[in-house]
């Protein structure tokens, strides 16, 4: 498992390629790779958003991410996991989060990737503050649920 917080913009596919290269011993065993990329949109709740800052809780954030990935590794048959999350100042179009799950079979990859994203959204201490085109700024109050009702 690799977990990274990045204060600078990251390129998701470079991260995945580096991860795959470091895990070359799994190459022939990987049958399924599920990747989720969350990117900053230029609108939210009906307003135009020009930038965002992402606050976190150094120490606790990393620890929660580790606990989430560890739980995924216990619940599904997973070869390896990469999680990268931005912190600091972010522009529309920038990747915010990258989750990569490598498995032998696709069901595990889909389930574990989604589990990690939902757990991250509800448990990992990150907070978004949006700067609106109207010059106002506001804290995002709640993450939406990722599952259909």
């Amino acid at each position, binding site marked *: 498992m690799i977990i990274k917080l990045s204060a600078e913009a990251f390129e998701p596919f470079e991260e995945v390629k580096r991860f795959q290269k470091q895990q070359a011993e799994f190459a022939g065993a990987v049958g399924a790779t599920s990747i989720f990329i969350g990117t900053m949109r230029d609108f939210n709740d009906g307003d135009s958003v020009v930038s965002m800052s*992402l*606050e976190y809780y150094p120490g*606790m954030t990393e620890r929660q991410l580790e606990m989430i990935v560890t739980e995924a590794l216990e619940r599904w048959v997973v070869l390896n996991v990469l999680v990268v999350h931005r912190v600091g100042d972010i522009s529309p179009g920038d990747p915010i989060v990258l989750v990569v799950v490598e498995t032998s079979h696709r069901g595990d990859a889909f389930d574990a990737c989604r589990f990690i994203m939902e757990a991250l*959204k509800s448990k990992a*201490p*990150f907070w978004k503050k949006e700067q609106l085109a109207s010059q106002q700024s506001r804290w995002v109050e709640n993450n939406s649920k990722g599952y259909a009702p």
Partner: protein
Amino acid sequence: MSIKVRYFASLKESLGCDGVELSGAESLTVQQVWSQATGQITLPDNILVAVNMAYVDQTAEITDGDEVAFFPPVTGG
């Protein structure tokens, strides 16, 4: 007894500081730490609490040297 209290995000802004150090003789619950630190009687329902970087509920007991963090719902990802 010394407790480090920390606030994050909108709570840090509304309280106007990022935390406080509490010291005293008695043993405290999370709820009591909140009251002593902020001067507010009730910890709002939607505020999350972590002790030493692990989530706890509002009835948890705090011991000497603990770091107690209060923060709003998380919005990462």
